[in-house]
């Protein structure tokens, strides 16, 4: 049988998250088909067709798939589900939105945010905000998985593309409608693909002060993230949130500034290679996991840091 992997794209590129997550599919031991959706996306389809390990691209070419709605994408996947025994996507907000719907339509359990494949039916995932790691075995004939991108390296690309099959789904459900998107604009790299992240918490006191982080980030080529407290207080938009219920990141370097280190925050960043914490409270739990801790007032040391790099 075959694995179907749903490939996301933004701004004319295959999403970095999909490129990472698709690497997990080779451990499933089956042929891999990539599914990609939208119109006027020839260059993305070509890029996708060159992903190493993918033997065919299924291109849903229909305007209704230019903005992904769970109802419509699920129906397109379920239409062709007889040919597949694994259905996978990156554990992004799109993957998490769509894959459980696919699973229920196929009457199978879904396995969320796997970080490892132990065998063809056994998978590893974190539970309780990363405080425990479970190994789960599925007895379903068809398996629906979302894959945590930070657990994998981006797939390589081939020189030549594989076969592309265009499909145009029938009976597209019409019970939901896309209105618009307000995407956060930033010159900084995307959080989930950045090599360096500097995040601010409640200690930043307000949104203007995040400029102190922006300046350091500009020098390091880093992305800027935040704790939930900072997002809830309105300092920064929701998509900055790192943690159990925000984004999971694992950069080379994570700098936590004015963040106490609640388990829900740690769940999103503790697999970073090197962690730095800057906090004025030497008892803050973030220091328990930081490689380098600096007990200091952030308003004093952030300008110093900007000057020193």
């Amino acid at each position, binding site marked *: 049988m075959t694995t179907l992997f749903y490939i996301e794209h933004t701004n004319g590129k295959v999403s970095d998250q999909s490129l990472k997550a698709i690497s997990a599919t080779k451990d499933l031991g089956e042929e891999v088909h990539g599914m990609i959706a939208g119109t006027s996306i020839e260059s993305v389809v070509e890029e996708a067709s060159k992903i190493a390990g993918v033997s065919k691209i299924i291109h849903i070419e229909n305007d209704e798939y230019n903005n992904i709605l769970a109802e419509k994408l699920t129906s397109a996947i379920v239409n062709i589900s007889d040919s597949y025994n694994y259905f996978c996507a990156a554990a992004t*907000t799109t993957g998490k939105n769509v894959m459980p719907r696919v699973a229920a339509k196929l009457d*199978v359990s879904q396995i969320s945010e796997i970080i490892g494949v132990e065998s063809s039916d056994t998978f590893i995932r974190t*539970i309780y905000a990363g405080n425990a790691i479970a190994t789960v075995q599925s007895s379903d004939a068809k398996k629906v998985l979302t894959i945590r991108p930070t657990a994998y390296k981006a797939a390589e690309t081939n020189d030549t593309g594989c076969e592309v099959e265009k499909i145009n789904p029938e009976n597209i459900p019409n019970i939901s409608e896309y209105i618009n998107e307000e995407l956060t604009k930033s010159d900084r790299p995307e959080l989930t693909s950045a090599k360096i992240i500097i995040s601010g918490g409640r200690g930043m006191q307000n949104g203007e002060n995040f400029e102190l982080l922006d300046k350091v980030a500009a020098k390091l080529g880093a992305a800027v993230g935040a704790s939930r407290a900072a997002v809830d207080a309105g300092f920064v938009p929701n998509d900055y949130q790192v943690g159990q219920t925000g984004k999971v990141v694992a950069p080379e370097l994570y700098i936590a500034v004015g963040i106490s280190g609640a388990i829900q925050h740690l769940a999103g960043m503790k697999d970073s290679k090197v962690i730095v914490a800057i906090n004025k409270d030497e008892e803050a739990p973030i220091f328990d996991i930081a490689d380098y801790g600096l007990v200091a007032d952030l308003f004093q040391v952030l300008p110093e840091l900007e000057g020193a790099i």
Partner: protein
Amino acid sequence: MKILVPIKRVIDPYVSIRVKSDNTGVETDNVKMSMNPFCEIAIEEAIRLKEAGKAEEIIAVSVGNQSCQETIRTALAMGADRGIHVLIDQTVEPLSIAKILSKIIDQEKPGLVISGKQAIDGDNNQTGQMLAALTDMPQGTFASKIEIDGDKIQVTREIDGGLQTIKLNMPAIITTDLRLNEPRYASLPNIMKAKKKPIDQKTPDDYGVDITPRLKTLKVIEPPKRQAGIKVENISELVEKLKNEAGVI
């Protein structure tokens, strides 16, 4: 309109988790339990819709052991009108929960279902989407704002790049994100009043749903511990270490 709110009882988010020494799961004996935070947000949203005159009745449903009654009482004290408790002692997968909930929807015919986006124990983030699939309803997941507009509902969703707005035919399923609202605390008089509100006790058999698990947990282990590192004195020492010792900048 009726609003159905599925709520889960979980280990309190501020309790530190201990993995059992036989690696079969996580210690739950004598551990403080609470309503899943996302479910509190769901109840709160339902109450606000009722207060705004957009809903008449709020039904809180919980599937789980006898203590779930306590969690339902909390929802009733916040402002839900009645409860349904589906008694089952073993842990149930989101697919089975969704199957039970879909049968309850057949009976109650709510105009809206508001569930949490994620239960913070299993971190599955599946039940609402599965329920939407089984009932063929549209889904507005990770909602940070909802607005009923005639027989449609406009939902602002928290997505990876920012915010997305969609419009759904009702009945629809909404799953809550953290910033949808801030849940209220139940007042003492309302806690007293909630004692008189009805809770229906059911079993999965009442709904004729097969809840045989499809997944088997083979083992649960502790994550590898990260060693605490060192404290540096100042920024120049930090930058020197990051450059020469860690080699990350």
